[in-house]
């Protein structure tokens, strides 16, 4: 099926890899630059963040000392270059507000968010696939119900869904804890909160291409070969239909991080999103830049993975 791909010369592959790496480096550099200047543009004095946050009654000496220590008395451009220099050597700097090095701080927070995002992505896929399969066989009513559910799901704001789930499952039914707990039970509600709206999106996109796929020649020929209806649906149609949704998974990852900001706050989970939100509100530049860079790396990796997944799901792409 895909002999073409296998004979591609090594040199070509190397060029692709180099271009990818170069592109990734460029993206990271731009992300760091934009974030640095954006956070510096926000009104508010970073020296205050270092000295105990806004409203602290600091002395002029202490402010001057801190400004000198962190290089805040330097021109912004010098500060930018200094930070860039540190970033290249892998040093994310020291948090203004938390009195800690940024790298270990963020790495400590990364695990929880990543777990949440990956689980939510998985559950969203399951929900979307399940609903699409069910509603594509159930006739017109099932189709309408399915697509209606997807639109409603996609229109649910995380912060509202989270609270509604807490009221239902924690307060009324008492089944699940409303805040993070050591076991897996505490993960259920946050994951659902993130997964349901995303499933609505993926489902909407998949539903359309599922129709196309079900009427396309390769499905007809599979039917003609006498393959079972389930086999046709799952193996051929769904695989084809999931392509556009897979290509959106990179985007979905980004949107999950946005969602994590809200979800981690509501469910009191430690994580990158909550750290990021706190850091932005106290103008903690190194933490914001560091967190955004980590998210950017995650996004780039996710894009690579989705490309790979697409190549597996769609043989035609392997030639490219």
């Amino acid at each position, binding site marked *: 099926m895909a002999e073409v791909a296998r004979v591609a010369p090594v040199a070509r592959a190397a060029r692709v890899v180099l271009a990818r790496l170069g592109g990734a480096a460029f993206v990271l550099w731009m992300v760091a630059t934009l974030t640095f200047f954006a956070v510096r543009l926000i009104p508010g004095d970073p020296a205050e963040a270092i000295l105990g946050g806004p409203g602290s009654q600091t002395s002029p000496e202490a402010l001057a000392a801190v400004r000198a220590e962190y290089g805040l008395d330097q021109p912004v451009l010098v500060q930018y270059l200094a930070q860039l220099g540190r970033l290249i050597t892998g040093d994310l700097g020291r948090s203004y507000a938390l009195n800690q090095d940024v790298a270990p701080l963020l790495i400590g927070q990364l695990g929880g968010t990543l777990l949440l995002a990956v689980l939510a992505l998985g559950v969203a896929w399951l929900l979307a696939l399940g609903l699409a399969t069910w509603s594509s066989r159930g006739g017109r009513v099932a189709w309408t119900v399915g697509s209606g559910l997807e639109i*409603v799901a996609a229109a*649910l704001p995380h912060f*509202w869904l989270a609270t*509604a789930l807490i009221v239902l499952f924690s307060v009324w039914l008492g089944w699940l804890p409303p805040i993070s707990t050591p076991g897996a039970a505490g993960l259920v509600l946050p994951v659902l909160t993130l997964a349901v709206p995303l499933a609505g999106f993926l489902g909407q996109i998949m539903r359309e291409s599922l129709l196309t796929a079900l009427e396309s020649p390769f499905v007809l020929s599979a039917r003609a070969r006498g393959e079972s209806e389930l086999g046709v649906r799952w193996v051929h149609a769904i695989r084809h239909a999931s*392509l556009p949704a897979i290509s959106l998974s990179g*985007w979905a990852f*980004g949107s999950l991080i*946005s969602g994590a900001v809200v979800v981690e706050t509501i469910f009191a989970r430690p994580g990158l999103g909550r750290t990021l939100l706190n850091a932005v509100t106290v103008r903690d530049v190194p933490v914001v830049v560091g967190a955004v860079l980590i998210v950017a790396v995650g996004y780039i990796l996710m894009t690579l993975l989705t*490309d790979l997944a697409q190549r597996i799901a769609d043989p035609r792409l392997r030639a490219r």
Partner: protein
Amino acid sequence: MSDLEIQAGLGRSPRTSPSHRFGVAEVLAGLFGLFLITAALFPALVAPGDPLGIDPLSAFQTPSPAHWFGTDESGRDIYTRVSHGTGSSLLIGTLATMIGLGLGLVLGTLAGMLGPVVDFTVNRFLEVLFAFPGLLLALLFILIFGPGVATATVAVGLATAPGYARIIRGQLILVRSSAFVEAATVLGRSPGRILVRHVLPNALAPLFVLGTLGIGQAIVWASALSYLGLGAAPPAAEWGAMLAAGRTYIGSAWWMSFFPGLFIVLTAVSATALGRGIERRMRHA
């Protein structure tokens, strides 16, 4: 890349009503749309009360004949507020979507039409934007320019632009490589003419659906900003802000967030149903 595949689906119409007659869903969506437009233009016509009029003594009342959707923490009538909030909510949704689509259109067209170098540059730029979580992009923008309806609208537009740009670019590449565009090129038509006459009309048809989906999304986005205290200033009757404010009382007064939420969802659903219907007719025409 793979974006062209996205559009394989988005432009498609479900075969649920192959005829040109209006489906039940479309009629219902149309009626609701009519209500929304009336409420947006002449709010006093559908709800004569004052959306900001407080009545502390009748706070937290459950839905009743006197207050169809109940009252909020200051005794304001929620039906009145939802109706009067239609205009600003729709405006936020529509404007943000237009900003997002407009930016996306410019970037997507640049990338899709002007050759590999521009494509590469724009693509990197888009990746940079994509690599920012959308909420953070909006958050930074609002903190720099100050909170409020206007900045929240622009912020949501900015945050959604890269997604639109990618889809548009993919669509353009798909259409450009199609048979009839190649035929036009062979016939010696100028590139500008091909773009305007052939590529754009075909590539942009799905944008309609995308846009209608986007309006509901934009309102939801704006409500997330309100939840973080960065959206419409209280006590403005804006759906997102009402939803965010009502969430505080979700355990004791569910109606405070249910009805604004219901209107957001219904708007999204109706816009989608109508958008698809119109798009289907355009395609068949």
